[in-house]
């Protein structure tokens, strides 16, 4: 296995492994661990983490309010830590994600399915943006705007799925073929992995009172 010429960012296998390790740590529901995880992700990829946190605000704000009103304030850092861990995975290119899954011996068809689904999500986000741009030029009422957006988007989603299948077929992409192409881990990848392992060890050792 050798590397292809990939763009900047953490290597996919490192991201997946670190995310799993950090998620395990976060599920100790300890504030200190959650804060450590948040700090690590902010240091590792500050822009991406902050962006993901801002995107998820419509969900986190009601949660925080509910936690204050109904109890569970101590869970708040845990939720934010999980979102930060998610941001490590969000930025991975879908293809790299698929290759990394295959490296971990996940069946190729399953890995491709996940990779294609993630890719389709990106495509549909782009489609949504373009349809919204077009609909804004038409001065529609709110109801009609949403109705037209949903109609367009559902039709486009079906078309995209069909065309993706057609292209995969046309290019002879064998979904049962294991293709492993991964980037060589860099120093920052090792640093992320070691930091994640350290947090897990800290969680386990301090919990067991050692």
């Amino acid at each position: 296995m050798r590397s292809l010429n990939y763009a900047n960012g953490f290597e996919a296998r490192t991201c997946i492994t670190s995310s799993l390790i950090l998620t395990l740590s976060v599920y100790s529901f300890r504030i200190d661990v959650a804060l450590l995880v948040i700090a690590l992700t902010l240091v590792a990829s500050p822009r991406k983490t902050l962006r993901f946190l801002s995107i998820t605000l419509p969900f986190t704000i009601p949660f925080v309010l509910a936690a204050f009103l109904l109890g569970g304030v101590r869970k708040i850092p845990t939720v934010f830590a999980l979102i930060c861990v998610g941001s490590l995975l969000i930025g991975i290119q879908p293809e790299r994600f698929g290759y990394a899954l295959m490296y971990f011996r996940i069946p190729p068809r399953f890995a491709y399915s996940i990779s294609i689904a993630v890719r389709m999500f990106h495509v549909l986000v782009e489609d949504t943006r373009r349809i919204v741009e077009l609909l804004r030029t038409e001065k529609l009422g709110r109801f009609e705007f949403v109705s037209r957006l949903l109609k367009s988007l559902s039709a486009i989603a079906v078309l995209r799925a069909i065309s993706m299948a057609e292209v995969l077929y046309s290019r002879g992409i064998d979904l049962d073929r294991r293709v492993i192409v991964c980037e060589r881990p860099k120093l920052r990848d090792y640093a992320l992995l070691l930091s994640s392992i350290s947090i897990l060890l800290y969680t386990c050792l301090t919990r067991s009172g050692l």
Partner: protein
Amino acid sequence: MIYLDDVWYEYPNGVLGLKGVSLRIEGSSFVGGSTGSGKSTLLRTFNGLIPKFYGGKMRGTVRVEGKVFFIGQNAEEQIITSRVYDEMALPLLHGGYGIEEVDKRVKDVARSCGMEDLLEMETSKLSDGQKQLVVIATALASGSDILALDEPFANLHPDLAKRLIRLISKRTVVMAEHRLEYSEFFEEVIWMEDGRVSEPKDPPELECVRGKPGEVVVRVKDVTFGYDRPLFEGLSLEVRRGEIVAVVGRNGVGKTTLLKLIAGIYRPWDGEISVKGRVGISLAFPNYHLFEKEVRRETKMLEVFGLESLASRHPHSLSFGEAKRVAIAKAFERDVVLLDEPTAGQDSEFKARLLRVSRELGRAVVVATHDLEFAECCDEIVKLR
């Protein structure tokens, strides 16, 4: 080598796509014919998309020696990965090539296509023309024995298209295209008509109908705009009622962006844009504009554009060319019409109708195009650099 003997094909909806086609293709072949003549259907039989993927009934013999790489009409739908490099590498990786070989091939092809600067780009950030270029480069890099290309140059600047044709015509390639000027680069010309192979015909010359421009309805004054860097600075343009203005220029120069600025989708960094009346826009990917259950509910302009036969069809069951026509007809319901590559996938008959309708309805039309023949028939040509 591709060999077809008495091939008949009926689509699942009962439409006969091919009617007894017999062919033998070796080397490079150009497939001409009007819209709906069966060019795309023919190409799809080469790699089994028809009938395996599309269904329907097929009889006759199709024998293909070698692996076929098929490119459809709509570049937007042909890209499957998120980065240009990965797009070009994917078929090679699945073809069993080693990493060094993949890397070398991808870079060699990118160099020969003049697109090295695109390799690291995200595919979603590419212009329509750049997407088409990436798809063709992927085909070239793929190592496939046969290339089947369905109007691959509709969104490309003619100079770039000719450069790519020189590259592909050295292989076994079958290319369906409306622009006959490209046929001279191919060893053989196949002409399709109503699902059959027929004698090559010269299409009617595009008749340029001149209009009588009225008041100014679109005024672009000293506009500066760009994305990461300015695309144009101090751009000025006026479009009058009843006038057709063609915007031309190489790929990625900002033709579509200019249309979006006039439509009000983007706001200029500097300068002013004023538009009198309602704006109708038709982008290169027509399906963004179609959302009803039947074509007749999309637009009242079907008759004007001769699209009555599509009235009862679902808009998303249409071919790329047909969907484009409907999207264009829909844009013509407005006073100011902005069309992005309206002649892509269209025969000369439709181009002539488009010019005629624009004149008859007296719309102010701005067309972003690479079709220089069509641009010549417009009242003004704005060349972006």
